[in-house]
């Protein structure tokens, strides 16, 4: 072999192979008890949605027994740019399980207890007040009463802190919520869907001094609790939140395409966000999406650096990376020989009795509880059919969703970038139903 030939062979291994890193190690569906034919129904569902211009494109990943069965890309990632298996998405609230995992790593090191009051680490959370509305005709609309007890780390993990999202005034409007959010507005609190020019600590310290919507532990209210946890990671670990997640979660799990701010060299892999009317009108989003208190800035994801590190919404990732994260949970805390969490911690995170009589009804209906980072199906007496008792999952604002089925050892991930959020529940549920229906053993 002459020198020139050797050079080209080396070039092939050094340059060509890494470019095709999206060719994942796959197995046939039948080898893990799934049906190829049924899997095609899932592909058809997404292809039809793209053809009807209800969504621009998506990546759907199905895995069983820890083996990748299908990573199917459909449609466009951006104008003139086809969707790829390794396209990067704004996973928004699918950041929350990652942040919860960061907290549980600190818990396993004995650096915090879930029963610890948050004020032990962030003093601004001491002596919190709760808004109580007064009857109509009273001199004042509301009064502030001392919280019956302090907010704990467990409250934050399970959304029982009484901390809101501003956007919730649009989801579930009521006078009390409006009153609490009016404090948030004046204090410059944001939901983190746009990236403000301040540190997460600055925002959280202001939030801690504002009144709660309800007494800690007496409410299930999806909100900024996990953003507080992100800052808590900084306080307890002494590291910036993104650095902690990078070194303690992304690197051990080899989530090489997961970032808080996208590296410049990966910008062309970031999918665009699209607005859909769900009837065939699809437009690429070019600016902020503002609707009342809901403020979304999908184009902030193109920023390659910034101050704000939202534990509830910041992360960008791929279907494959998130599969590795989800598979770690399915394996009870371990992946490819790397143990991230102990089996007992995963069992604690996926237990269904964290929120008492409350239901995690934002994404689902009744019958779903909330663990430490995601919703968990407790029973089948609800209207959403997506699998077995014990399934745990969560979603993201630009239409992303993951689902882990411990009984069937399956992971399903759907990533799209389509607004508005509310229109996608039907599609998500169909994806989960079709994914589960591929089981043929």
């Amino acid at each position: 072999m002459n020198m020139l030939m050797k050079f080209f062979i080396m070039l092939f291994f050094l340059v060509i192979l890494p470019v095709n890193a999206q060719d994942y190690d796959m197995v046939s569906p039948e080898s893990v008890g799934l049906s190829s034919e049924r899997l095609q129904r899932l592909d058809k569902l997404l292809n039809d949605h793209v053809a009807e211009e209800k969504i621009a494109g998506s990546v759907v990943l199905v895995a069983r027994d820890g083996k990748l069965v299908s990573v199917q890309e459909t449609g466009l990632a951006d104008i003139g740019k086809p969707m790829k298996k390794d396209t990067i998405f704004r996973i928004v609230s699918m950041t929350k399980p990652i942040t919860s995992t960061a907290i549980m790593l600190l818990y396993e090191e004995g650096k915090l207890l879930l029963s610890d009051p948050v004020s032990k680490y962030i003093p601004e959370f001491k002596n919190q007040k709760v808004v109580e509305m007064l009857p109509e005709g009273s001199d004042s609309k509301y009064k502030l009463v001392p919280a019956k007890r302090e907010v704990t780390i467990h409250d934050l993990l399970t959304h029982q802190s009484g901390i809101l999202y501003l956007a919730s005034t649009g989801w579930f409007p009521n006078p009390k919520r409006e009153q609490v959010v009016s404090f948030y507005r004046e204090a410059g609190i944001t939901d983190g869907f746009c990236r403000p020019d301040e540190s997460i600590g600055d925002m959280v310290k202001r939030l801690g001094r504002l009144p709660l919507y309800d007494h800690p532990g007496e409410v299930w209210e999806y909100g900024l609790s996990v953003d507080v946890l992100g800052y808590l990671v900084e306080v307890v670990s002494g590291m910036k939140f993104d650095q902690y997640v990078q070194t303690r979660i992304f690197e051990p799990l080899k989530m090489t395409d997961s970032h808080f701010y996208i590296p410049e060299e990966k910008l062309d892999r970031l999918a665009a966000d699209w607005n859909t009317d769900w009837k065939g009108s699809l437009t690429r989003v070019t600016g902020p999406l503002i609707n009342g208190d809901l403020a979304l800035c999908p184009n902030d994801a193109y920023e390659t650096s910034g101050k704000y590190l939202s534990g509830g919404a910041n992360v960008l990732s791929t279907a494959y990376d998130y599969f590795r994260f989800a598979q770690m949970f399915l394996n009870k805390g371990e992946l490819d020989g790397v143990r991230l969490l102990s089996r007992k911690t995963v069992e604690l995170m996926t237990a269904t009795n964290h929120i008492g009589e409350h239901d995690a009804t934002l994404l689902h209906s009744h019958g779903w509880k909330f663990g430490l980072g995601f919703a968990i199906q407790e029973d089948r007496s609800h209207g959403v059919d997506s699998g077995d008792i014990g399934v745990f999952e969560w979603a993201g604002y630009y239409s992303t969703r993951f689902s882990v089925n411990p009984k069937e050892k399956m992971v399903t991930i759907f990533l799209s970038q389509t607004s508005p959020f509310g229109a996608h529940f039907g599609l998500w549920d169909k994806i989960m139903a079709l994914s589960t229906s591929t089981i043929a053993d």
Partner: protein
Amino acid sequence: MKYNNKTLLGLFLGMLFMTELAMATGPRVTQSMLVETENEMYAVDAPPFVSLDVAENGLSASIVNAALKAVETKATLTIFPVTKMVTYYLNEEQALAVYDEYISFSEDEKKSLIYVPVFYAKESYIYSKLRYKEGLNGQGSLSDLSGLKYGTHRSEKQARSIYEEAGIELVFARHYALFNKLVAGEVDFIKMPDLAISWMLEHDNSVQKEHFSTMDISTQLVPKFIVFNKNNPDGEKMAQKLKQGLSIILENGQYAELLKKYLHEDDVNERVKSLTQSLQP
């Protein structure tokens, strides 16, 4: 089913034991962890005057603490990020005292308030040299600034007509927001206390000190007040105590030392004199 005495005794002891266990693993967070406060006053976060982000809660808070300590009185300062919460405590819970220069009171409300000055601030007009490379100066006349946007705090609302007649558009906001508007080019110049300007230039990493300059327009010292509530049973008594305490620390030099520490100025005589005069009966 029959129970003998031994079984019942066993069950009873078992229940006692279980109760003990349940208590031992009960909630770690209780109401008793919440701190009782004494002579609670409320302020809106306004660094570097009053803030949790500043050592000893800032200049104004340090002065109030030192003055009350001089008359052997304890007080707690609770700092909120929003005016709305401070006004709530003042109006709805008859708070003892509040500190926020942005709260505006009606003439009727002022009748139930006692204003105690704690500090005289020097204010300056500043502009961005990136925008006005040749400088921006009124040359002693407001009309030279006609057509420009001026960012200031609401206390200048009363002087609005002067600026409007000169063709200057007023934009009202809090200090931090004003500074951000100046950086963003949304206003042409702003007026702020020198101490606040220095603090923001030091703490905002996205700006450089040399990009900002002071306009050649003279300003007067402006008093910063803590406002006591006559409707609170202790309001008038505490206002009087604070005045006494201020007089003591003015006289023993502690007040001047505090000013020097926070302002990094050697000559604080004018400010000391202003406060001394304002405390005269």
